[in-house]
């Protein structure tokens, strides 16, 4: 808590990757992910090549491998499902270390694991080289509906405020001798959640009033509207274009 939004995810630096405008990086990351998911899963070597490309980006951005790998752990809950597939998917069986595993299941697991990991790694690289605020501005420049960008930006601004409110309510509950232990106490917790919702809703109304009072008419002004140079676009395109080459090879070889 209190880390605010110069964020846990962000890793300050002055590398060429950090310096790229956020929307170039967003487009590059999205392009890369699209290319990765459209690669045939049998082209195993291609995924190695993608990983090498990301490693190159990380090197240019001076993001240490350990940092990147630790961040990748966020993927684990999703991957757990993939690990089940070799056991439960019906089809041709094969023997690995004395355990019968399904061949289509193995391929399916590999597919999810490889593509998922690459996608998460690309996102982690994006997040650790781009400030959250810049990501939002980037989305705004990419013409994502302004309402969605505003909602996201308020979420970032008020997450800490609401968390703090929640913590204060919890302290107040415990100060009156309440400890949540098991199902019997869920009613109290649910009531607290309801109160928190109403408080946040009312805060939303007050914020809206304050915005109207300062002339809000439906859009947040974009302050520093810098247009990226074509060199910056070209630099950002290096990753998805290289990946596309790999993908095409994967389909033809």
């Amino acid at each position, binding site marked *: 808590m209190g880390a605010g939004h110069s964020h846990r995810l962000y890793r300050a630096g002055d590398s060429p990757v950090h310096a790229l405008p956020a929307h170039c990086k967003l487009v590059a990351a999205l392009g890369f992910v699209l290319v990765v998911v459209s690669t045939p899963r049998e082209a195993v070597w291609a995924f190695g090549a993608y990983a090498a490309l990301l490693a190159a980006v990380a090197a240019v951005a001076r993001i240490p491998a350990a940092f990147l790998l630790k961040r990748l752990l966020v993927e684990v809950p999703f991957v757990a499902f993939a690990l089940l597939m070799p056991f439960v998917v019906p089809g041709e069986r094969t023997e690995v270390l004395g355990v019968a595993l399904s061949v289509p299941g193995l391929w399916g697991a590999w597919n999810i694991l490889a593509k998922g990991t690459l996608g998460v790694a690309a996102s982690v690289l994006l997040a650790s080289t781009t400030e959250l605020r810049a990501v939002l501005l980037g989305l705004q420049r990419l013409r994502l509906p302004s309402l969605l960008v505003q909602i996201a930006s308020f979420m970032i601004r008020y997450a800490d405020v609401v968390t703090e409110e929640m913590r204060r309510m919890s302290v107040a509950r415990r100060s009156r001798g309440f400890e949540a232990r098991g199902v019997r106490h869920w009613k109290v917790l649910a009531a607290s959640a309801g109160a928190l919702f109403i408080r946040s809703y009312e805060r939303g109304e007050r*914020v809206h009033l*304050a915005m109207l009072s300062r002339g809000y008419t439906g859009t947040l002004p974009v302050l520093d509207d810098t247009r990226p140079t074509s060199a910056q676009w070209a630099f950002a395109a290096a990753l998805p274009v290289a990946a596309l080459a790999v993908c095409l090879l994967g389909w033809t070889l």
Partner: protein
Amino acid sequence: MTHTPPSLEVRGLAYAYPDGHQALFGVDLTVGRGERVALLGPNGAGKTTLVLHLNGILTGGVGTVSVAGLPVGRRDLAEIRRRVGIVFQDPDDQLFMPTVREDVAFGPATAGLRGAALEERVAAALERVGMADFADRPPHHLSFGQRRRVAVATVLAMEPEILVLDEPSSNLDPASRRELADILRSLDVTVLMVTHDLPYALELCPRAVVLSEGVIAADGRTQELLCDEDLMRAHRLELPFGFDPASVTMGT
């Protein structure tokens, strides 16, 4: 010499909320340019309702409000909201942008200001509240007193005709309270200060009005009002223990 219209002129303002609860019963109030006026009154007197009429958030009642001669209405709403700078009580409601700079820039940028002129306006506003060094901080990282000062800057950046402060001293420690008072005194702008904090009103505002049960019940020199025990008791206004307004000698 041309006649300057008063910063704020409220005539016969009455308003009932959609649920039928009537909050204002004909308020008349004139605030001259450059005046600092305290708006006093017990809880539920209609202070907030009155404030929300000043920039046209609430409309539809009877009576008129005009700001520096411009009537508050649908037609000139953007200009009215630029002219009336409301500083709300909770700075977390007021500061909704990710950084202090963007928040202070919000008002003028919405009004169409861009580039160097905008930068200058933001820097000047932050300078006036002594927060120039915090421009790139997220509001959540500031102390409460600092957030309140930034909230004042967000409104000053719009170069308002009148600054309306809702409980400016609430939740401030004595040092922040004094700092804010120094800032408010240094500003060359009309101020309407809504407060329960009677010593603060006396310190900052030569004139005070008492709003009670939806009407202006008294209007006069702050010190005289605070010394009028019958008036104070009649409107549930109480001085802090040990505070004697008659013993305070005012600067001017």
